């Protein structure tokens, strides 16, 4: 059983071993293996329906996998009920109990653990202090703003000193400004407590900012896992490149293969880009170029020629959509906002080819 101690419960190490979960005929999670280190902030990232929430719920014990195992510190907990896993979890809708005050919501897990009254008082106060809600003990959830509810949910998850913190899109119901603020607070709390954290989101920016490591999921499978930098700079395939940061995909054909780079014919232009794996001459490929790796100049200045279709003025920066003669549309980011750009203008785009990536394309 749970032992109550003043010491911080040691963060656990999590291992997912070939997890599979089917709902009807479709597999929500398929053969998923991952390991999350002690104290690590680990994010499951992917579009809706990719299985990230199901994975989190399997780790929580709310869903039983059809196959595979969940290990905490090497111990198999696959069949352990959630109440014996010593977790903290923040739900997307916060799941605050509407009939309980803030104090009772936060104290719930401590009461279940038979923590003495005085200590409950002290620890709840401490947890509320940590999330900046001191003085709100007597309020009901309906009397709180979205951001405050979010903090209560976080306090409730942390007060039991869990070995693992699970967060299911916790910021998706907050407005943009509050989201950034809460994000920073969560990052600070997580670092201070050194608690292992499994975070689910479809927001790539959130994932990049917060995570030690990210796993990108698609259709229930793991596509790629790594640090934010690894994923952003060396995406394994088109899906990761596009999902994380966005990518312009240009169809091309390999012309020449070097030791670590390849020359690709894209329309009229030839681009030399780094490559890993196979790329024989004549093979169709995608040239993946991030919007900020295109340099725009007016008129015919070499590179790809195109016409401006639309511009987005964001104040601090300018983005544009450019159509190539064959109809392909490219996104261009990070332009000087003072650039006099109008739809219909002919422009040329130079690819910063050392930042471009080449992926195989099935023709």
């Amino acid at each position, binding site marked *: 059983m*749970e032992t109550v101690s003043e010491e911080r419960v040691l963060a656990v190490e999590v291992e997912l*071993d070939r997890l599979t979960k089917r709902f009807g005929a479709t597999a929500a999670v398929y053969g998923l293996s991952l390991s999350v280190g002690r104290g690590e902030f680990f994010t499951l990232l992917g579009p809706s329906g990719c299985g990230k929430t199901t994975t989190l719920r399997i780790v*929580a*014990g*709310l869903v*039983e996998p059809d196959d595979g*195992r969940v*290990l905490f510190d*090497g*111990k*198999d907990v696959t*069949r*352990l*009920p*959630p*109440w*014996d*896993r*010593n*977790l*903290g*979890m923040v*739900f997307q*809708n916060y*799941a*605050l*109990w*509407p*009939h309980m005050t803030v104090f009772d919501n936060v104290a*719930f*897990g401590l009461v*279940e*653990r038979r923590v003495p009254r005085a200590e409950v008082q002290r620890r709840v106060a401490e947890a509320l202090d940590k999330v900046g809600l001191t003085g709100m003990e007597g309020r009901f959830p309906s009397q709180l703003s979205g951001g405050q509810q979010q903090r209560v949910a976080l306090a*409730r998850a942390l007060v*039991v000193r869990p070995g693992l913190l*699970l967060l299911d899109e916790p910021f998706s119901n907050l407005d943009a400004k509050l989201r950034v603020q809460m994000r920073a607070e969560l990052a600070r709390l997580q670092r201070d407590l050194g608690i292992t954290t499994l975070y689910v989101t479809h927001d790539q920016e959130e994932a990049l900012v917060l995570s030690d490591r990210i796993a990108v999921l698609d259709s229930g499978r793991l596509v790629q896992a790594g640090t934010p930098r690894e994923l952003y700079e060396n995406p394994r395939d088109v899906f990761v490149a596009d999902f994380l940061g966005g990518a312009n995909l240009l169809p091309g054909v390999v012309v020449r293969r070097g030791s670590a780079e390849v020359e690709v014919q894209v329309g009229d232009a030839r681009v030399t880009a780094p490559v890993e794996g196979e790329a024989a001459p004549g093979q169709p490929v995608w040239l993946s170029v991030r919007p900020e790796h295109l340099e725009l100049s007016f008129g015919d200045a070499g590179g790809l020629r195109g016409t401006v279709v639309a511009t987005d003025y964001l104040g601090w920066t300018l983005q544009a959509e450019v159509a190539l003669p064959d109809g392909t549309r490219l996104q261009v980011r990070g332009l000087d906002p003072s650039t006099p750009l109008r739809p219909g203008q002919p422009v040329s785009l130079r690819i910063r080819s050392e930042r471009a990536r080449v992926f195989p394309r099935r023709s």
Partner: protein
Amino acid sequence: MEPRAVTAPSPAALWRPRWRYEPAHLALYAALLVVVGVLVVLPIASVLRGALVDSGGFTLAHVARFFYTPLYLESLRNSLYAGLGATLLASLLALPAAFLLGRYQFRGQAVLVTWLTVPLVIPPFVGAIGLNQALGRAGALTLFLEDRLGVQFVAAEGLRGVILAHALHYFPFILLTVTNALANVDPSLEEAAKVAGARGVRLLWRVTLPLVAPAYAAGAILVFVRSTDDLGTPLILNVKNMLGPQAYFRITTIAREDPDGYAISIVMLALALVAVLLATRLGQRREVATLQTGSRAAGRPLRGWGPRLLLAFSVLVGFLGLLPHLGVVLMSVSRVWSLTYLPTGYTLDHYAEILFRAPQFVLNTLLYSATAAVVAVAVAVGVAYLQHRGRVPAPGLLDFAATAPIAVPGVVLGIGFLRVFDRWTVPWLGVPLTALWLIFPMLYVARRLPYAVRATSAAMAQVHPTLEEAAAVCGARRWRTFRRVVLPLVLGGAVAAGVLVFVTAAVEFSATVLLISRVEQSPLSYGIYLYAQSPRGRGAAAALGTVAVVLVAVGTYLANRIGGRRPALTW
């Protein structure tokens, strides 16, 4: 990969076993199936058996005889006539006021709504006593018409009286349904029609009315079926040629096993079933028209003649709706009230009679209704929980059985109870179950379970599953989660439902009357009937009726306070 240092959890700690069903849920499920099976399924099945099975096995002969017997056909005609008449009259009274309340905004609106809903607190068979004093053969208004205007017209007599009693009781039900539907029509639907060029009468006819029609039809159908299968009102007004009274007399005066009684029951059952299914279908259609945008049209101010006429008519209806109450209350304090406009002497003697000399009617009612309310709520919470969260086979089955009595007329359920439980001998006592007072709470649980289950189920549906998941993650086992999270959240709805069970049970008559074996055991509703049999007892009947009205009024108020706004009750 071999698991390292696996500590196998104890079997009791297993959260979701590999098998699909949860043992604790299965046990509760089985227990509730037995309860609902005995209280609901057995009596209904027994009535069906009585009508469709004889010594030679399955037969339609009894049902066929129903359609060859002139008396039964006349009863069917009268019942349909009474139902149709009550529905039409109730609609006539309700619709103008509904339009007024749903479309206009004026001072005193809330007062008018409350006033117009007051008739719901007086059960029709109690109202009939009051109506008799106002509009019966020797009623105050009847005399007035004859003396001053020379018109001889008895409004509250025979079938006409039954229709009037029902219409005056049920019109608020239609009023509330339609007002609600009108208020809930998404204003953008009407705005779109206006933009498209429709206005005035055309807008009303082509857009507004079609949107409100399903709600009205659903409400009207329920009024129709309740009026068709009532027993108490015809008995009080001494109308025997209707389905309810015929079934009652066959079973209680001819023979317990008389197949004709069961054949009549089956016809009533079929009528009610069709009506309830129809109303349910229409009720589902209604959802389409009411969008959950939360935006409501702002009411228009009262301007011009049209709306003012509506207001005047509504006030008139309000006075009409108070006639039964006035009649009953006046009657309850009158020493002599015969062939005069108002009583010629006043007394509290009738209250002394029912509160001190024969207090058992009121005491029995309190006991039976309270017991029924507690049991019904407990069963309803179980049924609702299993329906929404149960890891059991066919969770809908239990819910279906528990809501089935909604389509069973009270007389029919009473007949079923009599047929089944008269044969059950209580161990040690050696008497049939029908001889014990427990039979009444059992009956009321069966009869009111649908309402309790619906209300509790609605409350349960509001509990988001993540609230329970959050509790599980926080360390609460399933029972603790139920106690600390689920139960507190559904309790408001369940208690409100319990109060409604209490008040509806307190004035139940149609089924009660079949199970009376001893006067000492009889509840208030039968007491009213008993006293009303003799002219000298009318005062006491009215006093009991007043107690019933007060009980219902207080209960309805409490239920609304506890559970928030809920649909109006009907019996």
